[in-house]
Each structure stands twice: as C-alpha cells, then as structure tokens.
C-alpha cells in the first residue's frame, strides 16, 4: 500500500518544532536582558559612555602654555591611597571613620557627571617602575574603587608625562625612573565606567 500521510506528518512535525524553537529562543533573549547584560543592544550605551569618558579626560587634561593640566595636578597630589564613593564623598578605603577624603578636580567632575547619572566608575593608574634595573609598567593601582565592573564596562585612558619639577605628594608611589634627565615618569590614567 502506497500512502504519503507518514511523510506529511513528519514534515508537519519538523515545521512545528522549528516554530517552537524560534519562539523559545526569542522568549529567552527578550527576558534575560538586564542592565548588566553585555549584548548587541548595549553597544549604543557603551559608545555613549566612551564619548562621555573621553570628554571628561580631555577637559581635565587641557592646559594653557606654561601651566599644568588639572589631571596632572591631581596625579601629582595623589597620596597613594585608595578611595571609595560613600554616597556623598570619596572616602579612604578601610578608614571610614576618618574625615580624610579625596576632593580634587577629577572627583568634582566625576561627582557632577557620573554620580548624577548613576554611572558606576573607578579610576586606575599605571606607571613605570624600575624592577631589577629594567623599566617596566606597573600593575594597575586603584585611586577610586567601586567594585568589579560588569561585562559591558567601558575603559577610557589618558597618558601624561611627569617631570622632575612636578613634585609629587608624600605617599605617591610614582617614582623617578630616569635620574639622568628631567623626565620623571609616564603615567596612564584609566577611567572605567559601567551602568548599574
């Protein structure tokens, strides 16, 4: 006996399963999106954050001829401590009772722009160190710490050059890597931002 019903039922079954699969994938994609999920739809937000971050660093790193930039001034005056945002101030980590807090050009701008928009952020520095008579980049050191960034965090950076005439604060770990000339160090400031 020749009958095509089995073939038809099989094909219908395949078509139905494909439809179900598409529906399930679509439903999972739609419901698993949280603000911290890295996905193609967060690209626009990342791009905006990058522009915002670069603008902040560009503004801080501008200097008239004969003057130091605000960013350089802040790095020179950093005391080597790590600070965290407590909702009002950037206070010294592990010393919450202390009135010691970080208030400079950088924190003023971060507070006015990033804190007001609910953007989590941290600031790190990398500088050159002498290790066994070889000059190498240091590991990242936090100036402002705000936990571990999410997958869609954006990093913007700026490099500055310090001279011997740029006197740094006590406790500042940025050393003079070149005693033979007026070059003190090359410092990279990294601003990490992410949406909460």
């Amino acid at each position, binding site marked *: 006996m020749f009958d095509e019903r089995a073939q038809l039922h099989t094909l219908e079954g395949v*078509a139905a399963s*494909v439809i179900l699969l*598409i529906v399930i994938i679509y439903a999972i994609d739609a419901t698993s999106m949280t603000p911290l999920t890295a996905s193609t739809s967060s690209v626009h937000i990342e791009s905006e954050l990058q522009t915002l971050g670069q603008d902040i660093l560009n503004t801080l790193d501008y200097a*008239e001829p004969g003057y130091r930039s605000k960013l350089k001034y802040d790095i020179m005056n950093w005391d080597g401590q790590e600070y965290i945002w407590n909702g009002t101030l950037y206070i010294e980590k592990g010393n919450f009772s202390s009135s010691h807090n970080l208030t400079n050009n950088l924190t003023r701008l971060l507070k006015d722009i990033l804190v007001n928009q609910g953007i989590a952020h941290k600031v790190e520095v990398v500088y050159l160190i002498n290790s066994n008579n070889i000059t190498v*980049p240091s590991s990242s050191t936090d100036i402002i710490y705000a936990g571990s960034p999410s997958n869609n965090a954006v990093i913007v*950076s700026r*490099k500055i050059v310090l001279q011997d005439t740029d006197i740094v604060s006590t406790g500042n770990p940025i050393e003079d890597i*070149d005693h033979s000339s007026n070059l003190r160090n090359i410092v990279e400031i990294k601003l990490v931002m992410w949406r909460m």
Partner: protein
Amino acid sequence: MGIIQNRDAQFMLLAGFIIAIGLVITTVMLNSIIFEGNMAVGGGSELSKYELVNMMQITRDEIRNAYINATLIGGTDVTVNFSMQMNNFSANLPKMFALHGGAVNITLDIGNWNNTRYANFTDNGMPAGAANWTVVEGVNVSSVDVFKFYNVTKASGKNFKIEARNSTGSSVWSIEFNDTHYIVTNITNTTNGSTPINPLPNDINLIDPIYYFQSASSYGPVSIQIIYGNNSYGRFKIQGIANGKVFYRERDYILNTTSTFSTSKFKINMTIPVSVPR
C-alpha cells in the same frame, strides 16, 4: 464517481511554509553576522583614534619641557641635554603603549635648532602657515612686561605688522615695518612714530615707550595679532596677564617630530611641527 484523494496541495503548502521559515532564519543570521562584523571593525579602530591624539600631545609637551629644561641649564651641552631627555622618553613611551598591543617609535629632527634656522611668524611657524593670526586674546595691556621680537629678518619689499585689537575687533595700536621705516598707529589714527630703520633692528622691544604700545591700555582687553607673518622670521616672546591669568607665548624654533604608531592591523607615520619653547 469517487472522491479523488490527492495530497500534492498539502505538500506544496508545507514546502512553501518551510522555505519561508528558512528565509527568515537566514536573514536573521546574515544580519547578525554583518552587525558583529561592523562592531569588530569599529572596536579595532576606536582605540587608536584617541591613542594617536594622546601620543601626539604628550610628545609635543615632552619636547617643549625638554627644550625649556635644557635651555635653563644652558652651557655648551644644551642640545645634548635635550637629546638625552628625549631619548629617555622615546625609550620608555613604547612600554606604556605595548600594554594595549600598539608599537610606538618617535624620532626627532632638531636641524632647525642646530643650524639656527628661526621660524616664520606664522600661526604654526611654517612658511605656509596662516600669515594673519591671533597670538593671544583678552590681554591687559598695562600688565604686559615682555613683548619682544628677536633675530628678526624681513623679506625685502614686504611688510610685517603687529597689531592690538579691542573686543570689537577694531585696531587700537599697531606697528608696521617696511624696508625703510617703522610706523606706529594708535586709535586716533595719528602716526606716533615713523622713525627710519634700515635695516630692521634684530631685537625689537615693544615695551619701549618709543613704540607707544602702552597707549592702548585705556581701551580694555586687547587681542595681539600678527599680520603678514609669512614675510618675516625670527623669535618672539610675549608675557603678561590675559583674562586674569599670567600667559606665556614664546617661539624660538620649529622642531619636527615623526611618530610611528602600529598595531597588527595598521601602521601610521605622522610628522608634526612643534613650536618651542611653548
């Protein structure tokens, strides 16, 4: 007559349905591939744009700092001290860029300095730079304590002019040099001086009362302009207070620096003229 049982129509419908679903899936996948491809390209070039600008900026600043430090120390090893600092900078900068997978090489040409070839009084110091330009704005005339042009050489038959303009853009003072005379003009358009000069003096100190620059002090903040800067070359130094802050505008030479920035995707060579000391 019995009913004709034929399932061809059902097969055709199903086939059409499955083809439609296949098309939808293919379109969605293609869209994703194109989108991710674009993102990968964008991600690869985004970093470099900012890195390049930053590299040019810190190289320019370091050249200026090294020049100022070397000339402050003075002595016979001025260029040696300058080169030592720049060599240290060139050796250490690539280590910072290597963290991002970029390679950097910086070379410097100080031929203009070694051969005492002064820069044109144009915007960027190059012969083809803007000839008419603003040196500084918002200057408090009475605060200007240095206003000098040194080692000036003017092209024969061409004029060279320095001008102070008020906030509306009107000239309140100017000095123009031609082949035989200098002519000072103040706001009332009366010529205060037209002393013959031949040749042009090497060092022109415009603070000197004979040039009447201070006569512009009663007209509020001024902008200092250079006109026909391409007709002459030399050095200049202007110092005073502008917009409530001390300002320094000074140029001895133009030093050319070439920076090479390369990643696994591309390599860029950039030569930029740097005006020193600042």
